[in-house]
């Protein structure tokens, strides 16, 4: 791993602020296109709210379909941020530096998107207010805090608030940098947002200590969020395929698998679109792929455990469900695609250094993982419900409607739109991290080999 180049701070500023100081040519047409998709999606959502859930494919017995699958998917993606940012920060992994901001951002925007799905899935979103914040003392009606419908918003709200604050605190030095490089209204905006940042030792110390402290605090939240989301299913004792004690760790590790893969996708796009070859290097993809091999294999172990525990009891409905998931059309086709894309294709490929260092390969394999991980959630949620009732004629009744697919597409456009909008005003790669890496890294000669060495403080 000797791909690091010595870069001066003026160059780092110019390259990493190219999204804010010089808008790239592709930015406006892309944002316009995504904006149109977002507006169409919002119109479709409005129509659905106006007409009711009858316009979806949801029907007895499948009341949770594409919307809840997509909700779980985006909560999973959100686990990228804290996994990358907090764990790698705590372990002082040097290769985290160009990745952290984008990963934290992905957490915030995917959580914001995830939250939309339970809301619209309720059919009458305004009624959710009564479930969550209904301290309507005059009527004596209070939320049922025993319900997962309360646990979910509390957990996701905590994670979203914490991640947003984490993102903002780590942005402060770069906001100071942007303040120094801009004029007019932009300068006024960055001056306010930078809160008077100057870069004295006290402020840098707080960045370091505070970053570690926040990472340590965010990690338990990160684990709890997807655990709580998994309990939405796991506590439903009447649904085969859902009622599982290992759902919490299974969901968390699955979320990390899909989240880190999403970060890989995003890093490849960032490198190509903003030409950040000096900052997002093959060695970063290599490190992420190694991490993904471990995570994916851990996730695979949980997948087998889940299956083993389900079948161990020789419970007839459970066996029937698994047969349906794996051997009956169209679930078997989905199951094969899921298994191939989530593990069997990408992980063996990542074993080869040539693939790990090939950005295009990493981009496509990371997309495959997320195709698979979305299908995994779909295969957990829908088949369990599809054969829930004793009335055979209602089984396999669910087919997502065009409205659901449009809202599904809207979610991807929405997250990308938000990311690009953010990139217009704030740097996606932390400048101070890139500069710190230059200060703390030097090349040392070992024999005749020049090797990059990283200096680390003792505490």
């Amino acid at each position, binding site marked *: 791993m000797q791909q690091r180049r010595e870069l*001066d*701070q*003026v160059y780092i*500023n110019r390259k990493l602020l190219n999204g804010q100081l010089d808008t790239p040519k592709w930015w406006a047409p892309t944002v316009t296109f995504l904006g149109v998709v977002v507006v169409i999606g919002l119109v479709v959502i409005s129509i659905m709210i106006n007409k009711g859930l009858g316009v979806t494919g949801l029907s007895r017995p499948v009341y949770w379909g594409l919307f809840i699958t997509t909700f779980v998917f985006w909560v999973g993606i959100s686990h990228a941020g804290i996994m990358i940012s907090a764990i790698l920060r705590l372990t002082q992994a040097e290769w985290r530096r160009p990745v952290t901001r984008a990963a934290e951002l992905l957490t915030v925007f995917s959580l914001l998107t995830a939250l939309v799905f339970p809301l619209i899935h309720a059919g009458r979103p305004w009624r959710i207010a009564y479930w969550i914040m209904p301290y309507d003392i005059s009527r*004596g*009606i*209070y*939320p*049922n*805090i*025993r*319900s997962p419908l*309360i*646990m979910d918003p*509390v*957990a996701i*709200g*905590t994670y979203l*608030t*914490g991640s947003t*604050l*984490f993102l*903002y*605190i780590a942005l*402060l*030095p770069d906001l100071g*940098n942007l303040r*120094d*490089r801009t004029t007019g209204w932009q300068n006024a905006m960055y*001056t306010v947002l930078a*809160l*008077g*940042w*100057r*870069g*004295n*030792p*006290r*402020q*840098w*110390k*707080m*960045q370091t*200590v*505070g970053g570690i*402290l*926040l990472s340590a*605090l*965010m990690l*338990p*939240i990160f684990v*709890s969020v997807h655990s*709580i989301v998994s309990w939405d299913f796991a506590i439903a004792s009447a649904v085969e395929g859902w009622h599982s004690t290992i759902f919490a760790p299974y969901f968390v590790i699955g979320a990390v698998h899909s989240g880190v893969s999403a970060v890989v996708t995003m890093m490849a796009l960032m490198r190509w679109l903003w030409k950040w070859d000096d900052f997002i290097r093959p060695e970063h993809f290599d490190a992420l792929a190694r991490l993904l091999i471990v995570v994916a294999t851990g996730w695979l172990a949980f997948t087998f455990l889940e299956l083993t525990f389900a079948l161990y009891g020789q419970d007839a409905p459970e066996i029937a469900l698994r047969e349906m998931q794996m051997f009956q059309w169209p679930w078997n086709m989905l199951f094969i695609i899921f298994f191939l894309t989530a593990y069997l294709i990408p992980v063996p490929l990542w074993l080869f250094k040539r693939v790990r260092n090939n950005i295009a390969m990493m981009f496509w394999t990371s997309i495959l993982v997320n195709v698979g991980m979305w299908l995994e959630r779909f295969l957990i949620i829908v088949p369990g419900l599809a054969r829930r009732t004793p009335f055979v004629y209602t089984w396999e009744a669910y087919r997502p409607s065009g409205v659901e697919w449009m809202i599904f597409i809207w979610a991807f456009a929405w997250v990308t739109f938000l990311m690009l909008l953010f990139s217009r005003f704030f740097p996606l790669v932390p400048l*101070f991290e890139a*500069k*710190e890496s230059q*200060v*703390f890294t030097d090349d040392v000669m070992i024999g005749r080999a020049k090797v990059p060495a990283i*200096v680390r*403080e003792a505490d």
Partner: protein
Amino acid sequence: MSTQSILGLFHQAEPAADAMDGLKEAGFKLGTFDVLTGTPYPEGAFGEHVPQHRLFRFPAFGAIIGFTLSVFLTAVTQLAYPMVTGGKPILSVFAMLIIMYEMTMLSGVIATVVGIVFESRLPNMKPGIYDTRITEGWIGVVVTFDDDSKVADAESVLNKAGAVEIKHA
């Protein structure tokens, strides 16, 4: 007497550290001079005063408040609408624990962020003398004094250390 400050700008860390040493030797008190950089340097790289902080108290304080509020919220909510389910106790401790945990953590995180901002001495809308080249890699040594007679001494120290430019405010 009015508070004045000067800013010496340096290209490299070494002369900036020399300037900090020189200011100490010239009798300037700790806290009247500081170093400004565009990137974090190892602690003590400039021989600067290592700032003390109480950041670790903030999350603990926040967590205690969050935990107290969450106990109140979850217990009172159930007691206010006492719906008996399956003959079980009104207070469902496991469900309460989940919400209490999240609220405790949320409060801890918010308090930590408040602590980081407070201990960084932010927001500070009048941060004083500054130069935008600091975020381009230059290093600034800022000296603040109430006594005008010391300006010349400080300038002399900064120049001797190799300041590229000195700004007054």
